[in-house]
Every structure is written in C-alpha cells, then in structure tokens.
C-alpha cells in the first residue's frame, strides 16, 4: 500500500530556531514530492521536487529530495511566529491513476 509518513507529528520551537521536517514515502510510480503549508484554510503550495539532490529554496525555507532514501526534508531557518502551521508532504504517484498521496502533516508551533 502506498504511504507517506511525516515526522515529527508536532513540534514546538522558539522564534529564531531552525527546524527540519521529515517526509518518507513508499509510493509506486513516484513522479514528484510536494510540500504544502496549511494554516487555518487551504494548503498553499511551497515546493515541488522531482530530482534527487537538488535543493529548492524560497526565503527561509528550503527542501531537498533523496530518492535513494525515499525521503525529503523541509528546513525552516530563523523561524517566526508566522511559520506556525501544519506542513503537509504529498507524493504524486501510486498504483492507480495519478494523484497525490498526503502524509498526516507536521504541526509546527513557533513561540515568541
């Protein structure tokens, strides 16, 4: 069965800390891995990763994919209270028609 596992499930840090969120997957027909940030509303797109070892960056956020280890990490440096959210990892692929398989998410709380 295809699955995406994120860790930790929740994390509490203080402003200025650096955090690393993990995502591992067992998905047939892997196409890409995506990270989303979900606050109170809909998930918003952060990164799409298809190639191993190439880091994608956007401001204080960065992510990298390791296809050998079937995993990805999302790094957030110099965290701010506005980074508090649920971070969702999703993998495009699966044994059926193409779709996104989501992990349960990591709930990040950044305290001032």
């Amino acid at each position, binding site marked *: 069965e295809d699955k995406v596992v994120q860790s930790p499930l929740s994390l509490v840090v203080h402003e200025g800390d650096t955090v690393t969120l993990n995502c591992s997957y067992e998905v047939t027909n892997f196409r890409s891995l995506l990270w989303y940030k979900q606050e109170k509303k809909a998930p918003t797109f952060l990164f*799409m990763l298809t190639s191993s070892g190439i880091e994608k960056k956007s401001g204080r956020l960065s992510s990298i994919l390791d296809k050998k280890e079937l995993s990805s990490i999302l790094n957030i440096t110099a965290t701010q209270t506005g980074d508090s959210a649920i971070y969702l990892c999703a993998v495009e692929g699966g044994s059926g028609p*193409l779709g996104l398989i*989501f992990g349960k998410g990591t709930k990040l709380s950044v305290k001032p």
Partner: protein
Amino acid sequence: EAGVAQSPRYKIIEKRQSVAFWCNPISGHATLYWYQQILGQGPKLLIQFQNNGVVDDSQLPKDRFSAERLKGVDSTLKIQPAKLEDSAVYLCASSLDTRGYNSPLHFGNGTRLTVT
C-alpha cells in the same frame, strides 16, 4: 489570478440528511480534485476529474457520495445520506494537467462539514 472558489464555507447537518458542495477551479485548469480532510489527518483524495471525465474515484464511498463536473468547469460533491464520520473539511483543488509536473495543485479554502 483568481483562486479556487468553494462554497459554502461551513455546513452543519444532522445524520441521514443530504448536503452538496460546490467548486469553481482556476480558469483554464483541466484537472479538478475533491479531497476529504479529517481532523488531524492529511487530505485524502475522493475523486479526480480531467475535464468532465472521472480519472480516479477509487476512494469515493459511492453508496453515499457522488460528484459531477458536467461542463468540465464547476463541480459539485454530494453526500446522501450523511454519517457522523463524514464530518471533515472537503477541499477542492485544481491543476493544469494530470501529470502534476510543474503543475502543482491549488486548493480552495474548503467546506467544513459537521454532521450531528
């Protein structure tokens, strides 16, 4: 660019009642998805449309859930009759194509359904 529009934002119904959700995807997006997100879990795909055709509905509880996208644009998702375990946020998303490559999903704000 206008985002994915969903309505209503909230809905409270009693079990065994019916409910319908509406979604208008981003203009030009051929692929439309309905996801169910139960509290504490990641979104789960219910159904995927490519234009007005169904690509994947393997996880849709077809005895009570139905969805359509008649003209290849707007979509409705219906639950009849609702059960307590249907309480969740129903997210609609769209993308340019099914491949996903360089075409991530864009989500609407969702409809929060509470079944009492």
